[in-house]
């Protein structure tokens, strides 16, 4: 274990960071991860840090957030502190399999979990080296470096993250809670790479909680590939609660086989710049994908979601609801791409994006993109950007509820439509509570956490 860090400045070439430290990036990684680096670097060079000029990044310019002196961590830095003790952020009554990830790395003092036979929840770096046969056939198969610069950047620099393997037929009752911590003594850039495989007929729920523990500027480029095999059920919840000096780049790539079901539900409460790339490939018939997002933003926050649901075969369903509540100067973006391929008959694809602007200065840009190459499909989409419903507001007030409370009730009703889709009771209640606190302008960091990061 080394504690070496490299300094990275945006004025340098990010690609150069890799090319001049190849040995450092390659050390400890298996051959197949290293073999992917150079082509990824070339792809990254070709596409560059995303700006609005790139079709898929029309609503977000990432130049500025990259333009800072960050430290990067090509090797694991053992934290001297006991994060397990410092960080007790589990949602009350949420009994979980808890895993900590620090600056993209699997925390070396994670407790041993009591898991069903054959289940692996461990460091990606470790499993990739020890059992490459489990990882190699999946690695980078969904995150295509030639299609997205953040995927390319991640693949170029990827060292560690979380690996989850659930054998066929295994049901993990307890949610797997992954606390992604950013914690350092200087401004930092973290790369995290996760790979989840849910075997046939298996079931699991994963909760990501993204946190910042120190007040430095952070940029995290987090990429997760999820393989959901036949008839499996897999839920991924992501609570994004980093402070507003951070940039959270989060990509999730999902592939689904026959009759599988997925939920990807992202709640963005804090974070200076948040970009969510969500891609689902429906590869087996009768698969169902559910993508939900709720974002609350104020001050100068920018929150942008890009979804891409690819109906590759017939008889699948996809369902997307994304909602944003923007206050003050906050800005938001939503792009929802649905591709129904030629043979994907009987597709049922639904998408809705609803936005409420609380302040005159808030801005939202939204765009559905439907590409439908089959003829027998049901596709619907809709986007609205509006103010709070004045008629409903008056109705509530006319019954004796004051303006502030009435507004709050309407906002909670608006957000609850997404939150109610969370299939973990304690988490759902917690999130309703966090959202209400956020709307009330009260603290909204998890109060068990001693770091008041946001």
């Amino acid at each position, binding site marked *: 274990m080394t504690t070496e860090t490299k300094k990275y400045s945006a004025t340098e070439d990010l690609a150069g960071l890799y090319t001049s430290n190849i040995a450092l990036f390659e050390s400890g990684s298996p051959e197949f991860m290293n073999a992917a680096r150079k082509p990824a670097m070339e792809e990254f060079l070709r596409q560059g840090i995303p700006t609005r000029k790139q079709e898929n990044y029309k609503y977000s310019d990432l130049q500025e957030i990259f333009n800072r002196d960050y430290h990067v961590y090509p090797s694991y830095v053992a934290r001297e502190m006991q994060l397990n003790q410092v960080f007790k952020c589990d949602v009350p009554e949420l009994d979980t399999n808890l895993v900590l990830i620090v600056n993209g790395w699997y925390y070396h003092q994670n407790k041993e979990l009591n898991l069903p036979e054959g289940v692996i929840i461990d460091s990606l770096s470790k499993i990739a080296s020890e059992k490459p046969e489990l990882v190699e056939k999946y690695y980078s198969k969904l995150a295509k470096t030639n299609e997205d610069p953040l995927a390319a950047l991640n693949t170029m620099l990827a060292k560690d993250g979380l690996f989850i393997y659930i054998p066929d037929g295994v049901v993990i009752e307890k949610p797997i809670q992954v606390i992604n911590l950013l914690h350092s003594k200087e401004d930092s850039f973290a790369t995290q790479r996760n790979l989840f495989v849910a075997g046939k007929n298996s079931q699991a729920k994963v909760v990501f909680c993204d946190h910042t523990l120190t007040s430095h500027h952070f940029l995290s480029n987090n990429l997760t590939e999820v393989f959901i095999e036949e008839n499996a059920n897999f839920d991924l919840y992501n609570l994004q609660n980093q402070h507003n000096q951070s940039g959270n780049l989060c990509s999730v790539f999902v592939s689904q086989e026959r009759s599988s079901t997925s939920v990807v539900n992202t709640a963005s409460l804090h974070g200076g710049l948040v970009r969510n790339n969500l891609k689902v490939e429906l590869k087996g018939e009768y698969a169902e994908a559910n993508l939900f997002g709720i974002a609350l933003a104020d001050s100068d926050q920018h929150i942008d979601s890009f979804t891409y649901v690819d109906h590759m075969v017939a008889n699948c369903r996809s369902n997307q609801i994304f909602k944003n509540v923007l206050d003050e100067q906050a800005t938001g973006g939503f792009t929802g791409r649905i591709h129904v391929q030629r043979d994907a008959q009987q597709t049922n694809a639904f998408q809705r994006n609803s936005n409420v602007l609380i302040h005159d200065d808030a801005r939202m840009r939204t765009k559905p993109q439907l590409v439908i190459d089959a003829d027998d499909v049901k596709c619907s989409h809709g986007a609205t950007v509006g103010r709070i419903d004045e008629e409903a507001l008056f*109705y509530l007030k*006319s019954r004796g509820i004051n303006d502030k409370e009435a507004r709050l009730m309407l906002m909670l009703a608006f957000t609850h439509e997404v939150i109610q889709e969370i299939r973990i009771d304690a988490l759902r209640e917690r999130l309703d509570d966090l959202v209400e606190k956020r709307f009330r302008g009260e603290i909204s960091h998890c109060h068990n956490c001693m770091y008041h990061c946001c």
Partner: protein
Amino acid sequence: MLKIKDLHVKIDGKEILKGINLEIKPGEVHAIMGPNGSGKSTLANVLAGREDYEVTKGKVSFGGEDIFEMAPDERAKNGLFLSFQYPVEIPGVSMVNFMKTAVNEHRKHKGLKPFTAGEFLKFMREKKELVQLNSDLANRSVNEGFSGGEKKRAEIFQMAMLEPKLSILDETDSGLDIDALKTVATGVNALKTTENSTIVVTHYQRLLDYIVPDYVHVLYKGRIVKSAGKELALELEEKGYDWIKKENGDS
């Protein structure tokens, strides 16, 4: 209870109410009738505190206080209730939660302790029975997907919950079937005391058979052009509004 003096109201620069005078004393029931578009709902909404209306002239006092100095929720807490002609649907806000919040705001205003969950449910059960509100409706989002008649019944349920001093029922009878009309009227009468007052806006004499008014007023083109006892409603039912229009220089 309520005193309206020379009230003028504009919407989008157009004068809708052109000098309304009306006084309502405790215990009285007043019916307001009049052709479509004459300003009945406008009057009701202005009293309840709707913001997009511009009061250009006149005074309204409610319980001795200037009503225009009170926010809509304060008016409600001081005992004003409007049963809307077109109740709005509010997806995601449960009727139970909505009423619990409203009732407890009223209790706070009166210096009472908020209801506990148990107390509230008991209170609500009583009121639901009073207006024979289907239990299912109370468990749904406010008015969402309610039929026309169900919405009206839900309004009266809310009135029962909030026990107002002055209720304004804006066409609560429209959309109700005969049986529902009777239940609603029975509910309204059951809540009636010698202290509280009611304004009934309606097009039909029928409701007034059940809720018997002390006075009937005809609102026409933003003015009250005729006031009399309950027999006026019968006369209107029989003859329509033509003679009123003629008397006021239109045909």
